[in-house]
């Protein structure tokens, strides 16, 4: 398998404050990777530094991304990542045009439908402030998908959703991965979700990667005390 993303001894943070402390891991193409950690563990910062946000400064180590790969990010509050008072159609159009992708209405509608937005025409006419959190979430994922990213970076995409909608969104992410072979790198504080979808799991705490490996290994045979505790907190978890 090809490695699509490689992080080597990464140190990064905001200004002088160092948040990430010597992080290393690799992601293979087409796989689903979940980084699990409590809030403040640095998982969002990790995502931001991979995506190259202006606010995050890398102070050491390296991030190697396979060439010509577009990174799509689904942010923590996807509804907020759109202009609240303009239609999705206009905003998706701009996003596509900016990335030199033709705006094909059938294509767009089809993508929306895969994400469970059956009335795609209406959704496109809508403005973000008119839609619910779950709908905006899916629009955000759809928009990112339309940009045909090599890696889909998801930042706590399910945390703002109710359990049912969260489940649907996860299903759809898996569907996308299956259909398009899109690599998914998701950070979440929810080990349950990770166990449900991930091929690889990383456990983060206080800016450090405690453990990283195939999901089965981490879940069946955790090495770290912290991971064991996390697993204990999920008593009803069943791993197939």
């Amino acid at each position, binding site marked *: 398998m090809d490695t699509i993303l490689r992080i080597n001894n990464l140190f990064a943070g905001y200004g002088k404050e160092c948040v990430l402390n010597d992080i290393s891991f690799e992601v293979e193409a087409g796989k689903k990777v979940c980084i699990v950690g409590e809030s403040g563990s640095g998982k969002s910062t990790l995502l931001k530094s991979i995506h190259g946000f202006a606010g995050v400064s890398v102070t050491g180590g390296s991030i190697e991304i396979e060439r010509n790969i577009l990174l799509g990010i689904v942010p923590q509050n996807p509804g907020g990542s759109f202009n609240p008072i303009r239609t999705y159609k206009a905003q998706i159009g701009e996003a596509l045009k900016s*990335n030199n992708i033709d705006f094909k209405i059938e294509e767009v509608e089809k993508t929306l439908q895969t994400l469970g937005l059956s009335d795609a025409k209406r959704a496109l006419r809508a403005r973000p402030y008119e839609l619910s959190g779950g709908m905006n979430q899916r629009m955000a994922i759809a928009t990112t998908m339309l940009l045909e990213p090599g890696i889909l970076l998801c930042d706590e995409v399910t945390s703002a959703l109710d359990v049912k909608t969260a489940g649907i969104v996860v299903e759809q992410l898996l569907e996308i991965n299956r259909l398009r072979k899109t690599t998914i790198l998701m950070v979440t504080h929810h080990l349950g979700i990770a166990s449900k979808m991930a091929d690889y799991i990383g456990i983060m705490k206080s800016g450090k990667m405690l453990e990283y490996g195939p999901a089965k290994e981490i879940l069946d045979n955790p090495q770290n005390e912290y991971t064991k505790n996390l697993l204990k907190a999920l008593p009803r978890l069943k791993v197939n």
Partner: protein
Amino acid sequence: MAKQIIKRILGLVLILFVLSFLVFGIMYLAPGDPAEKRLTSQGVVVTKEILQAERERLGLLRPFIVRYADWLKNVLVGDFGVSFKDDLPVGPKLIKGLENTSGLALCSLFLALLISFPMGILSAVKKGQPVDHVVRLFSFIGNSLPNFLISVLLMYLFCIQIKIFPVIADGSIKGLMLPALSLAIPMAGRFTRQIRSEIIEQLGEEYVMGMKSRKVKGRYILINNVLRNSLGHILTIIGLQIGTLMGGSVVIENIFRWPGIGKLVMDSITARDYPVIMGFVLIMGTIYVVINLIVDISYRFLDPRSF
């Protein structure tokens, strides 16, 4: 939505009614007897009998409320009474002045926006950089300059030192330039400051981050989103400045002898020609209130969330 607009229009009618009452009340209480004023300004030797007859003829002896109702009824059909000075109807005079004033006001508003839009956007985008500091300095100074001072300085510079503009605005485009500029400079200073802070606020919105993460082109972010979203607030700012513009144009028209409504009212104040002053306040107040209502309604259309 229609309901809200109707409510606002009703509120506006009420405000205009109060305005008309205040205007009439103040004139009623104002020192000086209009009948006497009228006679003396026409060069009549005032005796007690003539004065009494004139008061009778002008209907000044009737009770306040009757006079007010009568005046209001006439005003509503565009009859502002006759001038004390020359017995000519005030309405046409005011309209003629208003035409000239609107020309001047629109021209200066256009100039101010022409300067402040690019400057405000530039300094917001380059916040903290040298360009921003320069723009802020100029807009701060512009905002601090009284327009009468600007006009005197401009006149000295362009009409007397370098003779390229006429001292008296003769109605030509060339004559319009200096008065318009005098009004536009402080206004441009204010607009630039406000547009800058509005754009900075929008640039800090979450959606801008989101668009950047989708690699949307800066041009789209700035023009189609940031500017588009600020438009409502900017329009409100412009609406509120119309009042300052009206006051300023009175001063400027008198300096450049521009035959607008401001020149007319100052001449009438000197002559204590009350009907003209009343008409002036009423018309300016109405225009200001109506413009701000239109701004308010447009704001709702520009930001559908506010419905």
